[in-house]
């Protein structure tokens, strides 16, 4: 067990939603940490040593331990620093939070990626899938302000990338899935989520993010076109 007082470092990248998610969690719990910006085109020795399997950010370094995968990092910090719990106490509600986190992280991300990078039929199918997924999230918000209830919790942090980065993706790739009329609860949740101070004060600059994602998309599309030849 590493003492909670040991030094905490976060290896991250400014535009990454997974990294911000960890920062939201750390700040909600009042954990002091040092942030280290990684150049993903030139990954540091530390990053490669501590995440040899996926070689990705975020990586949390706590004393001599390394934890990877943003949702696992949130669970780790919740279990190490017991104040301001991110996950609810009740086992059934915890299971529900983990379910929606998995849904947002796997299904919604996958569909958004496809809508963002693909063309033609694959793209339209992905957009349709994303619309259905958002419908599910909208229904889950019935009678609740946040996925966590009255305040944001683990599930909100997991879904949270959609409140900001989904809009960026829509703008860059030219599609629309968030229709406030069809998804009234989800649209309201997005606004409420972004208004929470710890979230509001921990987002990348929008224009810069749009620019970055545009550049990244152009690069990936060019690479795919070259590979297809």
């Amino acid at each position, binding site marked *: *067990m*590493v003492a909670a007082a040991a030094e905490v470092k976060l290896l991250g990248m400014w535009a990454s939603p997974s990294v911000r998610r960890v920062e939201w969690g750390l700040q909600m719990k009042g954990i002091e940490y040092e942030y280290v910006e990684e150049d993903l085109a030139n990954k540091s020795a530390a990053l490669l040593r501590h995440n*040899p*399997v996926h070689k990705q950010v975020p990586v949390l370094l*706590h004393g001599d*331990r390394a*934890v*990877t*995968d943003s949702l*696992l*990092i949130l*669970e*780790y910090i919740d*279990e*190490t620093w017991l104040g301001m719990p991110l996950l609810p106490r009740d*086992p*059934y509600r*915890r*299971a529900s939070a*983990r*379910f929606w986190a*998995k*849904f947002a992280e796997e299904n919604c991300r996958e569909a958004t990626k496809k809508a963002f990078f693909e063309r033609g039929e694959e793209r339209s199918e992905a957009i349709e899938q994303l619309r259905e997924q958002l419908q*599910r999230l909208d229904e889950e918000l019935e009678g609740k302000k946040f996925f966590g209830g009255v305040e944001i919790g683990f599930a909100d942090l997991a879904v949270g990338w959609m409140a900001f980065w989904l809009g960026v993706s829509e703008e860059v790739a030219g599609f629309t899935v968030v229709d406030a009329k069809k998804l009234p609860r989800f649209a309201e949740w997005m606004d409420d989520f972004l208004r929470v101070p710890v979230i509001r004060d921990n987002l990348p600059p929008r224009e810069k993010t749009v620019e970055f994602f545009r550049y990244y998309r152009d690069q990936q599309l060019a690479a795919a076109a070259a590979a297809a030849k």
Partner: protein
Amino acid sequence: MDQQPPTAFDLELLGSWADSHTHRVQLALKLKGLPFEYQEEDPLRPSPAVLLHNPVYGSLPVLLHRGRAVLHSVVILQYLDETWPRGRLLLPSDPCDRAAARFWSHFADDKLAPSVAAVFSSCPGDGRKAAVEQVHQNLKLLEREMGGGGAFEGRRFFGGDEIGLLDVVLGCGSYWLAVFEEAMEVKLVDPEAFPRFHAWLRDFEEQREVRETIPPIDKLLEYANAVRQMMLGGTADDNVAVN
């Protein structure tokens, strides 16, 4: 069918006899000594009960506890630990060890299992070679973690002296490695290339609760072959040796 009287623990499991994710939950319940009712489901034709309790995915297993659904095997296993915290626990107590158990469980489901499935659906030749190589790459990562400097160095099981969450997750799926090896005549778990993984798997399979949970391998082999026939369009004469 006669209605069984509800158990004192009010647990019902909807699953499929050949599904490794169902085995995980059955094994966990057995290890914890939790009685439950079991309902056999057809994974290809979800019953109204499955669709009611798992509207988003329609998949198995579904654990019902006092009528409320808990979904996804790894989520279910943690739910069992958290609901019965005084019984036998599957997750270790140290947060870093817990993170490692969860990380490698996700690796098992997100990387290892799909790579094994890719071998299963591959055609003989370069495609199969590449698919087998991918499985080996994934097993190498795990093997390394079980060795010097790794998170699981020197342990009999991933959970320590007794099997835990990661053992259940990896172990229940690993049966399929043996099944595919026989069905496809490929070597996936070479004891020389993966001595620790191989030794762990043999040890896992010997555990009483595991033997009582996982169906006989010849039945699984029959099932796997039938699935493969269906996937390949039901052509006969598919027993082509790997080059």
